[in-house]
């Protein structure tokens, strides 16, 4: 290393000269690659509807009209919203209360229990898909909205717990203690002291849970039926079998949704600090 140092000091090499510029070119390539797929769908969504070419030969709102007027697309979108909201509610209640319980007590095996409750995060969705499929088919619950919400909750709850831990860390325990000394019961303390202090984490966790459920495809593909099909499942089949141009309009709407979520998250996390 010392020898290399001497050489560089004597005469900046060609590589040394070009390094900063090459670095920036490589970074720009990376940024373009990252956003290109999201951005490409927007101009395509204003095409005329018969073929998917970029750039479109002429512009119209035809694809959006197709999406909003076709009842099957509307039905699967409604189902996804329904499952997403239910999953959000269930995983918020389960996740926040578990995170609160874990962060306010000490018991043997606490670390192990936490790892266990976070473990679905590390599990491939295909594994949970098969497990849920085998299980729900025994119970006769394949194709039900209940099954979808249960499976999605498993996926979202670890993220809710992680977000809840982060929020609860900043709640001063002396406040809870003070309230307790003055005679407030546990639930009253949670309602009046803890919850108001962690509103940003609750919003972040809700967004997380809703979007994760709304985008989930592999498990839903296994355990939904024609009647309970979600938007991603229908999109999956549509890309798999016949790429329909209406996908461009749906993709653009979803891109706008993701963009909104990511702006909201970064605003909330800044306020949180």
């Amino acid at each position, binding site marked *: 290393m010392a020898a290399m*140092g001497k050489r*560089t000091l004597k005469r900046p090499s060609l590589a040394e000269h070009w390094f900063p510029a090459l670095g920036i070119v490589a970074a720009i390539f990376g940024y373009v690659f990252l956003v290109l797929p999201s951005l490409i769908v927007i101009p395509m969504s204003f095409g005329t509807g018969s073929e998917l070419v970029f750039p479109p030969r002429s512009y119209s709102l035809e694809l959006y009209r197709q999406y909003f007027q076709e009842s099957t697309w509307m039905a699967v979108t409604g189902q996804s919203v329904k499952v997403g909201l239910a999953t959000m509610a269930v995983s918020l209640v389960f996740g926040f209360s578990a995170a609160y319980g874990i962060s306010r007590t000490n018991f043997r095996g606490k670390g192990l229990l936490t790892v266990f409750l976070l473990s679905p995060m590390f599990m491939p969705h*295909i594994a949970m898909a098969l*497990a849920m499929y085998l299980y729900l088919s025994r119970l006769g619950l394949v194709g039900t909205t209940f099954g979808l919400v249960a499976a999605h909750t498993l996926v979202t709850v670890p993220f809710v717990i992680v977000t809840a831990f982060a929020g609860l860390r900043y709640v001063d325990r002396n406040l809870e203690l003070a309230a307790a000394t003055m005679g407030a019961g546990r639930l009253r303390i949670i309602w009046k002291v803890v919850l108001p202090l962690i509103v940003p984490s609750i919003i972040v966790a809700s967004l997380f849970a809703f979007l994760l459920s709304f985008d989930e495809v592999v498990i839903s593909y296994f355990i939904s039926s024609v009647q309970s099909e979600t938007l991603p499942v229908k999109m999956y089949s549509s890309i798999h079998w016949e790429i329909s141009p209406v996908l461009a309009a749906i993709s653009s709407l979803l891109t706008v949704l993701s963009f909104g979520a990511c*702006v909201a998250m970064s605003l909330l996390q800044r306020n949180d600090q």
Partner: protein
Amino acid sequence: MIAFIVPLAVFFAVFFVLPLALVVLASLFDPVLTGSNYQELFTSPLYLRVLRSTLEISGLSTVATLLIAYPVAYHLYKQPPRRRTLLMTLVLLPFWTSILVKSFAFTVLLGQDGIINNIARALFGQDTALKLLFNRPGVIIGMAHYLLPFMIFAILTSLLAQNRDLRRAAEVMGAGRLKIFRSITLPLSMPGIVAGCLICLVLSLGMFVTPALLGGPKDMMLANLVEMHVRQTLDWGLAAALTVLLIIMTGALSAIISHVRGGGLGSHG
């Protein structure tokens, strides 16, 4: 206090432990108590081929992701905080974008009449036709795009954790930027690179959507084989054995990740 944990614990017992136990049982008992499902995994040419392509695709995608991610993470690291936050949006947008939107966009981008081929034709003549869809390159491009944000977060975290005085000292001593990068920044970011690669491997081993939509028949991965057994051949025992194998592989890698950085996948949020 324990009462707060009970509802979720019960939920996990009923909807996580029991279903997974059922998978293990199915892998051993379907159709009758036998180790033959596992034996078949490691002897049948089909399974060995799929296992090999799963490992190949995961490895190649991780390497491709690292090569694209590092310059981006390094660039982000060099920016003042305000501009870094702004540029982070470019990383977060794909992170929050549905994998189906991405797959759809790639089928349009990479196709015979896609933008990439149009550019290639403009540059290298009308006869150029790059085959980028429904084959190995297509899967790797799609997977790398999915994995990029995770890798960038991991590397950026370790870059930002570095002591800036080291760089300054090297600058004062007259070291050029490449020299500083090679002997300080890069070696110190190794933990981030290792963590990022392990995360990408875990995520890619169980990949289902990308190989199904952007790959060809030769790019089938373990997850696609599981689906084939459930939906077409109805061989639940084999599907379960494949799943157990996948869980063991990703579980072992995840254990290494938690060991390496005392956290886990969760820290990317």
